């Protein structure tokens, strides 16, 4: 089968930093070619070269056998190459139809925009994507992430894309939506579209890909048919060393109850949640987005204080009305969104790590900079943060290293109860297993960890017990031994046919 797009010997540097070196890559009609590698391996740059955002410094790109050198994303689109970006580049205040035809609007004979036809075509495109429930006149900002993604795919198809590049399409989707997306991708493949699929999630790759190309440090490690690989082999290609265990939860002795919730409630989104978290335990909370998991964490941490029920720490009833009180009770919260709640991105590692403990680092209102720097250096060493030093600005770090800074910042408060919301979202395999190892070590030291995660393998692999939330309340509890993917998955979705509103 001939290649739709073929790259050979592609190299690219930014400011004298070589990010891609002599990369060859091709996509055939009707295949899913997975592109994997740790963050910083060069995947995004390669995608951007194919999508016309960057131009290669050296090497050749051929589309349908003809040399191509895209000067803009538009040029790539006219050749049938479309990118579905991870961050979904849509206009939230415009309608679905307007978004789909943005930049290539259909025109009526008199030169104006042909709205009836655009709406009709948009409808047909969405129907093809099994998305009959999306209204073409809906405001895109009001749609769920999964639906916005479909709009973006429809937008690619509206330009007759023959090569569809998908950059971590499932990074922010819940399990149910992931399955639907995978079936859409399979359907497109059957129609002969060539798909470049970038993902950190190995199960998806094994479920979907025909071939896999692994990048590491800007170089191609290899390309292989999926049948020749297993998970272990793929991971070791990605990180350049074998990883013994993906989810290294050690068995620990589970101690006394640290945190108890009794019929905790917040508005209508958290209802009658009762649970007990013990020392040394990792308690996993599974559930769909919108099931109240994050909201429960925010309520425990005092960001949205409880409107009903009780919180007990060490068996004593406490009232938590602000994050300050939670912190002083020994509770730490590693938030779901690093950028939004975790880090002050323009500040240095040192300044971020010390933010939760400014009071203890300061004397008479003045910060002891030497103590602060020592704390930062210890954190860098203890958490394996890859950085130039404590004064490096955090937004320059990779996602995994940023997450370690968030973790370091909260562990600086020496908490006994650690709430982690999506601890490894958007983090590459190597950093992920490091963070899991850290969690395991913390539990072994007697911390109680409440872990919220959308990744079922993570929940199952790391938790001593698994709780399932749905519609703001707990619906099931499993011991480690009984927690299988089927059982937990069923509890998450059962009697909840549409996980979220359109």
């Amino acid at each position, binding site marked *: 089968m001939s290649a739709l797009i073929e790259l050979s010997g592609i190299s690219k540097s930014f400011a004298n930093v070589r990010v891609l070196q002599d990369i060859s890559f091709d996509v055939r009609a009707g295949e899913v070619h997975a592109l994997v590698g740790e963050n910083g391996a060069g995947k995004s740059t390669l995608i951007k070269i194919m999508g016309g955002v960057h131009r290669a410094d050296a090497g050749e790109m051929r589309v349908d056998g003809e040399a191509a050198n895209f000067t803009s994303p538009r040029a790539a689109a006219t050749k049938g190459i479309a990118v579905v970006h991870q961050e979904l580049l849509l206009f939230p205040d415009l309608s679905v139809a307007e978004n789909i035809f943005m930049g290539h609007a259909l025109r009526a004979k008199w030169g104006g925009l042909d709205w009836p036809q655009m709406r009709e075509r948009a409808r047909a495109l969405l129907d093809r994507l099994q998305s009959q429930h999306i209204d073409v006149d809906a405001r895109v900002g009001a749609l769920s992430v999964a639906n916005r993604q479909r709009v973006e795919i429809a937008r690619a198809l509206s330009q007759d894309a023959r090569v569809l590049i998908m950059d971590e399409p499932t990074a922010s989707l819940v399990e149910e939506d992931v399955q639907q997306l995978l079936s859409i991708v399979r359907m497109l493949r059957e129609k002969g579209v060539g798909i470049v699929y970038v993902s950190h999630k190995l199960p998806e790759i094994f479920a979907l890909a025909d071939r896999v190309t692994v990048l590491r440090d800007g170089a191609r490690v290899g390309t292989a048919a999926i049948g020749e690989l297993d998970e272990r082999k793929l991971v070791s290609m990605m990180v350049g060393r074998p990883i013994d265990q993906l989810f290294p939860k050690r068995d620990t002795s589970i101690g006394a109850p640290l945190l108890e919730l009794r019929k905790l409630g917040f508005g209508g989104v958290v209802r009658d949640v009762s649970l007990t978290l013990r020392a040394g335990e990792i308690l996993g909370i599974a559930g769909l987005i919108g099931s109240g998991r994050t909201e429960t964490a925010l309520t425990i941490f005092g960001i949205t204080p409880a409107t009903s029920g009780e919180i007990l720490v060490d068996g004593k009833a406490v009232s938590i009305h602000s994050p300050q009180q939670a*912190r002083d009770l020994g509770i730490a919260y590693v938030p779901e969104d690093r950028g939004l709640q975790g*880090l002050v991105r*323009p500040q240095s590692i040192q300044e971020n790590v010390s933010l939760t403990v400014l009071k203890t680092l300061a004397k008479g209102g003045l910060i002891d900079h030497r103590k602060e720097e020592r704390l930062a250096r210890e954190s860098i060493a203890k958490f394996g943060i890859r950085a130039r030093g404590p004064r490096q600005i955090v937004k320059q770090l990779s996602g995994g290293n940023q997450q370690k800074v968030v973790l370091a910042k909260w562990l600086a408060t020496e908490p006994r109860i650690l709430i982690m919301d999506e601890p490894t979202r958007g983090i590459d395999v190597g950093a992920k297993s490091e963070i899991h190892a850290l969690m395991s070590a913390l539990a072994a030291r007697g911390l109680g960890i409440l872990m919220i995660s959308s990744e079922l393998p993570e929940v199952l692999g790391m938790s001593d017990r698994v709780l399932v939330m749905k519609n703001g309340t707990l619906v099931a509890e499993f011991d480690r031994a009984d927690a299988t993917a089927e059982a937990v998955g069923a509890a998450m979705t059962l009697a909840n046919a549409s996980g979220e509103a359109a």
Partner: protein
Amino acid sequence: MAVAGTLNHRRSGLSRLFEAYGQEFVVLGAIVALFVIVGAVNPRFLGDNNLINIFSGNAYIAVAAIGMSLVIITGHIDVSVGSLIGVLATIAGTLAVQGYPVWVAWTVPVLVGVAINTFVGALVAYARIPSIVVTLGMLSILKGGLISVTGGTWITDMPPEFFIAQKRLFGIPAPVYFMVILTMLMAFWMHYASLGRAIYAVGGNPEAARASGLYPERVCVLAFAMHGFFAGIAALLFATQLQVIQSTVPPNLELTVITASVIGGVSILGGTGTVIGSTLAAILFACISSALVFLNVSAYWLRAVLGLLILATVLADMTRRRRHRAAGRL
């Protein structure tokens, strides 16, 4: 990318200093360049009298820019500071003329400045009205109120001991001391005090600051209140430098103050910048406006030159950041 290899990467202290204070160095370099060039064309530019005039006559802008920088770093803006300074200067002059003790004429305007801006800060923080809206409102209220109450008359015949800005110590006028000491104090405070750190954190990411146990609303009110204090001091320097106070608002003063902060390296998005930068930038403006006189260029060009300067420095800053970002990815 090869991350591990950079772990032990050591760089000279100078390059670290430049990365952290790049914009300040750019502005300082511009001032030095200006002295060299204009001094070569017209040596009288470098005369003692002229330099003292430059520093002393514009110190109030630098002082106001300290407060403005605090507000902008916190993630807000104040477009009413010019009107506030006009009002406070008028209050100072009126009190002095009416025979109140001079310390009253000096303190009351500062306290009024703090009170007004605490109120503004509270509206921004707790009523959640965007600061540009609140301060646009204040701009009209203060400006209109001032003209209505005073009818635009000039205030004269203040007692001689009132003119604090005309006092000298070791031959150097008092405003220079105010500018230098307040800048150094605030630079120290911003760097070493936990409240100073809180201002950067809240400006950089209020939600992360809240989750870390800080109180973004209180920090916002604090920044505005301090800004009111500096506006009060600026008003005193402004009111006492000449024998008369024109009880109107100095035209475009708020823009000059905001420009000083921005050129000094304070990000309009909040979270970064220093007061040393804004003071240097205020000095730079003063030098430019004086240089235009010495180069026989119409003073009307000043605003155009300032505009160009804003664009040029911001461009330089962006380029510098981009280079660092590329290097930082290593």
